[in-house]
């Protein structure tokens, strides 16, 4: 018993010492290179944002912030890696609505809990998503599209970059909101889908990247699914303005760490991230990636994650989406 007790006491002392060291570490943080995990392949939107952020954080905090791509299974491989990492602030994750609000609703085998297993640090940006149509489609706005879809129920296809992507969910919730039936045509990534949209093989597409096709005059954009209009297309209305005031889906990208991140580290990272996002040069580079800065505090970001997870859960139920 004595021995057991003293072991307990020693253990308690070590824990206390570690906690003290932890807070000391938070003050000096970071003292070694920090890894920002991107759960998607290099070259995409999230990857681009991570690289812009990493550059600014490296400059501000005096230690290299290194981007590491751990893609796979819709982003869950990388997210799970960070969920199980040591909460010391040296392994962070660039998460998205996909990894933290959509996957938890559709993937029963998901190895992490997007709320319990992470410490939110900051929401960084809002990604823009558009409903686009090939020029041959006889609809120039959302109203005409709804009329067209009511005449041809289930026959008008909308391409997305895959099952469970934000575009897919925007499409499904638009179907629910407008009470029409569209045909989901999933692709493997946005590239091949855009080819088919530009050639008219598929009439509609819901994605962020199609804004380039619209600028080239190959397609028309019927609506923006976000709350604001896109600065390059000031004449294109949002879905809210097109008669769906309740349409509130968010496609955000933010920074999180594993659960139990020291408060000091969170505060330091949140401040540095706020400074980074306020930099006009950073904002310009982000606009080129089809996103706009939408910084929020750790508390607000935590709220956003759990609210959106519930909101996407509703869509999954209403649309009868069952997969994985």
């Amino acid at each position, binding site marked *: 018993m004595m021995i057991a007790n003293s072991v307990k006491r020693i253990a308690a002392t070590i824990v206390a010492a570690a906690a003290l060291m932890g807070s000391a570490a938070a003050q000096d943080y970071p003292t070694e290179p920090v890894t920002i995990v991107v759960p998607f*392949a*290099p*070259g*995409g939107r999230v*990857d681009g944002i991570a690289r812009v952020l990493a550059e600014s954080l490296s400059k501000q905090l005096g230690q290299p912030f290194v981007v590491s791509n*751990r*893609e*796979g*299974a*819709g982003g*869950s*491989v990388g997210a*799970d890696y960070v969920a199980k990492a040591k909460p010391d602030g040296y392994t962070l994750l660039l998460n998205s609505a996909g990894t933290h609000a959509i996957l938890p609703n*559709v993937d029963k*085998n998901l*190895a992490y809990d997007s709320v319990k297993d992470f410490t939110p640090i900051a929401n960084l940006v809002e990604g823009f998503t558009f409903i686009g149509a090939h020029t041959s489609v006889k609809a120039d706005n959302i109203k005409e599209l709804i009329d067209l879809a009511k005449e041809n129920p289930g*026959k008008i*296809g909308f391409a997305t970059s*895959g*099952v*469970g992507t934000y575009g897919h969910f925007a499409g499904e919730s638009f179907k629910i909101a407008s009470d029409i039936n569209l*045909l989901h*045509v*999933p*692709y*493997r*990534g946005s*590239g*091949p889908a*855009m*080819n*088919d949209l*530009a*050639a008219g*093989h*598929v009439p509609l597409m819901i994605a962020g990247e199609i804004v380039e096709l619209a600028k080239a005059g190959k397609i028309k954009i019927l609506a923006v699914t976000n709350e604001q209009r896109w600065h390059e297309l000031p004449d294109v209305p949002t879905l809210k303005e097109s008669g769906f005031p309740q349409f509130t889906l968010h496609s955000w990208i933010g920074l999180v760490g594993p659960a139990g991140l020291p408060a000091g580290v969170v505060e330091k990272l949140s401040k540095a991230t706020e400074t980074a996002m306020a930099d006009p040069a950073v904002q310009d580079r982000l606009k080129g990636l089809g996103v706009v800065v939408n910084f929020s505090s750790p508390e607000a970001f935590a709220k956003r994650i759990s609210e959106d997870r519930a909101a996407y859960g509703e869509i999954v139920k209403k649309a009868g989406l069952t*997969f*994985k």
Partner: protein
Amino acid sequence: MEVFSSLYLGFSVAVSPANIGYCFTGALVGTLIGVLPGIGPLATMAMLLPLTFYLPTSSALIMLAGIYYGALYGSSTTAILMKVPGESSSVVTCLDGYVMAQQGRAGVALATAALASFFAGTVATLLIAVFGPALTSVAQQFGPAEYFSLMVLGLISALVFTQGSPIKALAMIFLGLLLGTVGADINTGFDRFTFGVPDLRDGIDFVAVSMGLFGIAEIIVNLDRSRDRPVSTLPISRLWLTRQDFKAAWPAAVRGTGVGAALGILPGGGAMLGSFASYAIEKRISRTPDRFGRGAIEGVSGPEAANNAGAQASFIPMLSLGIPSNAVMAMMAGAMLLHGIAPSPSFAAQRPDLFWGLIASMWIGNVMLLVINLPLVGLWVRLLRIPYDVLFPVILLCCCIGLYSISHSFADLMLLALFGLVGVVCVKLDCPMAPLMLAFILGPMMEENLRRAMLLAYGDVTIFATRPLSAAMLIACLLCVALLLLPTFRRVRAAATDA
């Protein structure tokens, strides 16, 4: 004259010091493995794939392409000097090249092979530059139905043009298609054949499969074979051709280039087919056919031009349609995917720097190979003395480290070992692995397009027959099968297999 401004852009990418360096490295490594029998370009490309992950995309593609055509050059060297073809594509070169070497004209044969290859390479580069973009604009008309039919055609022609038993090739195609179905289903998101292993959700890793089948398996099979290699080589005399040699060699090289390029563009085509066809043509139209096999210079220049033209022309379908036509191109497509670029008809428009940079680098690589090969022939031959007991463990270790560094996945290492074993079994059973690899890459694309076509046609199967382009390709498939059943063709095919 858009071609010229585009080529100018390409050269500006390709001649950057770094890219020249990678082009040179690729050509050098390619020559090296071409000289060493037993290690092919596919194995080498598979082994170097992880390395290219850390290079800029243009450098990665340039280096991998360099390995491919470098291997073709290197393999002719040993074919001529030792009657040991490094690759199947220079099997024909042995016939007359080795005899020329025995006659004391080894230098002439080597120079002929190098110059013919260079000529073919130059022409093929121009062909890609002209036809690539043209095909791209046609490809815009390709919908899901057309893609599906085109890929069926690709697999069937792979079947027709593969050496050996067509039944075995067919079996390997089906095995490849089955392996391609592993992973999350694209239309529903449900997992298929993943057995709950999260690493399999995105499908079986391409690098693990190719490295296992081609890299690991080749090494194991080599260990099994007899270790003594030919070391005595015939002396190299004068390196230059006489006026008479030139006169005999160049028309054959021109014809070889044409035949090689035409067969190279075909789905399932590549370097080997052209060299056999060219040799047969040269022998047939020659006024003195009995000189063939006794040191006829046309028998070297024609096939050598053809294999190089074929190798480069096979880039056309991959770069302009986004469809790899053989296993080497599947490897290139895999490398592009690693860099986040999906091969597609819009590749040339979206990444002109990569498209034209790669094309320009091919020409530069051909110039380099001329320089590497001719003066350094003696050095290459000496390379055959590197002991395999050193080489093989190093290669194995590099494979494992390389694969792990890309995916950080233990499961992928197990897959590597598994597919190494599968590869050995395939070799022992004489089952060709190239069709398997091609089907593994094309399979998921085929399924995706098949289901998408059906989805967009509301389940109407006739869509594949009523769309003209798709129908034409399906008819071509039937013709391929008919060709395979034709007795004359079967004899020619069997002869090529025996050669």
